């Protein structure tokens, strides 16, 4: 990926969508995946996932707050970003982002406030000073609950989560559409792109939740709930099977059809992307987690070993998904539209859209999550009744 190969059009020597645009679908994926994880409990009543149901929502919200950062950092004129909301072009897939992202945020906030409503009321009654005012605000100025209101809240939670699932799917499927709808880039131009993006989103979200659940519990000196962890691992395996199937189908169908543009894509996969796609994405970071997940799901693994292997698998899957984003976003741009060559991309460390900026953007949601945990308890207390 270091040198130009063949003939590349003169304007293609520079890759315009850089590391920031790799992170953007990665973050939206984490949000969508985490929300779906939470909805599995709230809508489909998967009781085993109760320990992480609240955490998943806060996790999704923390990442939601930072989702636009890579985009704003990438734009040539970030000060004009609101033009997309004020004067959107109805024919543009990208113009819908502000509305989809914004409405999803509203839904997420409403869901959060309702799920935490009883807790917030209790915290309001227990707290004092500025924090009391914060809780008063978060209860929307109604700091009391009744059995009737609780029942109504439960219905509302279920309703919002039920809307939230298709909306989360839409959010991330839409991100895949942004790429899949570009006919000029052969590596992106496939109707499977939104599906692949969506499934990898679920996978990354679940992996993120598993990893942080284990790490935070260990940090607190507690044991992660074994049944919950096992369920998470099973869901991760299930979604990963679907994700991997779609990824392989996408490549496999094109490879089998062997139409003209496949030869260009083939050159990309066997050339500049050989290591990052075949060896890393599909080899090391898919095959090993796949086998480990199958073993963890099917065998009777001891809790300690399950925790360790689940953490390792989650890290590997989080890497697999970012590799997939990288290979799609950067890889697609490496194919010259001349059909006769491949461009090159150099990831800077200190540049505006470099590795350091990316690491800061990825760390920010975790910092926000930390502060949110000071206001919203991430875990169910043992005395809490099932919501």
């Amino acid at each position: 990926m270091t040198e130009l190969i063949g003939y590349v059009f003169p304007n293609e020597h520079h890759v315009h969508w850089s590391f920031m645009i790799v992170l953007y679908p990665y973050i939206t994926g984490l949000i969508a995946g985490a929300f779906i994880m939470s909805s599995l409990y709230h809508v489909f009543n998967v009781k085993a996932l109760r320990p992480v149901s609240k955490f998943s929502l806060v996790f999704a919200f923390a990442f939601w707050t930072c989702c636009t950062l890579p985009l704003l950092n990438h734009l040539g004129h970030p000060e004009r970003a609101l033009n997309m909301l004020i004067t959107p072009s109805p024919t543009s897939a990208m113009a819908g982002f502000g509305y989809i992202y914004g409405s999803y945020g509203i839904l997420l906030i409403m869901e959060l406030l309702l799920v935490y409503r009883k807790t917030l009321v209790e915290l309001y009654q227990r707290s004092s000073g500025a924090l009391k005012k914060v809780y008063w605000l978060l209860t929307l100025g109604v700091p009391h609950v009744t059995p009737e209101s609780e029942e109504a809240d439960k219905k509302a939670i279920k309703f919002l989560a039920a809307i939230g699932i298709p909306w989360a799917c839409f959010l991330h499927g839409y991100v895949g559409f942004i790429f899949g709808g570009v006919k000029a880039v052969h590596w992106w131009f496939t109707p499977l792109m939104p599906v692949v993006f969506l499934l990898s989103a679920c996978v990354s979200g679940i992996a993120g939740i598993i990893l942080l659940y284990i790490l935070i519990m260990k940090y607190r000196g507690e044991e992660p709930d074994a049944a919950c962890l096992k369920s998470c691992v099973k869901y991760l395996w299930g979604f990963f099977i679907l994700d991997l199937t779609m990824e392989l189908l996408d490549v496999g169908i094109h490879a089998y059809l062997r139409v003209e543009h496949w030869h260009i894509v083939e050159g990309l996969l066997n050339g500049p992307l050989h290591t990052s796609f075949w060896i890393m994405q599909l080899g090391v970071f898919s095959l090993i987690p796949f086998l480990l997940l199958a073993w963890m799901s099917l065998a009777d693994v001891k809790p300690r070993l399950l925790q360790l292997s689940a953490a390792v698998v989650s890290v590997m899957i989080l890497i697999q998904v970012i590799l997939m984003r990288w290979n799609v976003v950067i890889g697609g741009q490496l194919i010259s539209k001349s059909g006769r060559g491949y461009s090159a991309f150099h990831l800077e460390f200190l540049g505006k859209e470099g590795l350091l900026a990316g690491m800061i953007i990825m760390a920010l949601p975790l910092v926000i999550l930390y502060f949110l945990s000071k206001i919203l308890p991430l875990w169910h207390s043992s005395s809490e009744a099932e919501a």
Partner: protein
Amino acid sequence: MSSNSAASRKVLTKDEARALIDRDRRSFIKKVIGGVFAGSLLMVLEAGSGELPPAQLPGVRGREYGFADHRFAFVVDINRCIGCGSCCVADKREYNVPDHAYRTWIERYLIAEDGEVFVDSPDGGLHGFKPRTDIDKPIRDGFFVPKLCNMCKDAPCVQVCPVGATFKTPDGFVLIDYERCVGCAYCVQACPYAVRYIHPVLHTADKCTWCYHRVRRGLLPACVNACPTKARKFGDLNDPDSEISKILRSPEIITVLKKEMGTAPNLYYLGARQEVM
């Protein structure tokens, strides 16, 4: 003859000669004063202001511009292009195009006897082309292909622009509103011809405009003017007498680039071989 010249020669008296000198002196002083005055005016009024070069496109000047009255198109005659780079130089000067960005460029195609195709475009052909020394195969064909915006009728760049900064005019141009563009580069991705780039100073998308500012003044695009072989042709398809109309109605084989993209370009190629992409 000698008698005539002798007759015309009149001997002046001293007073007559003095009067003649005085008249010439007054005339000289008048002319100097007039010249100084006129010169001063030129310092105030810009020389040639408001004057355009003679019109090159009929039916544009001297009347209100009707968007629907024109349907401009561009034809590149590949058999005429000599790869001199004059068009690229003219374009770079017209727009002060930054280095490593290209509104237009020229590609050199060399086709070997065995069918292998070699394409290059060093600096976009801005400095012309030096002979290639890296090919040790017999070459059976060689030609130059100028590239520029295709001004597609169904332009993907217009479709994907999230803020409508890239738009289409009824007279056949795809233009960019630099005051609205957010610099997201979605149009750069969507253009199948790679004619777009992000301007390093403006931080917005940029591309060839077929010199819209010149066309609206009845002038040909800068690259068309600069081409010494008339490989670049521009005109109004609504004008049946234009060269463009005649070419596109002729039995010549006319092609567009990447037809399968469904973009319906307004840029046509005359004599493009199948290897041209």
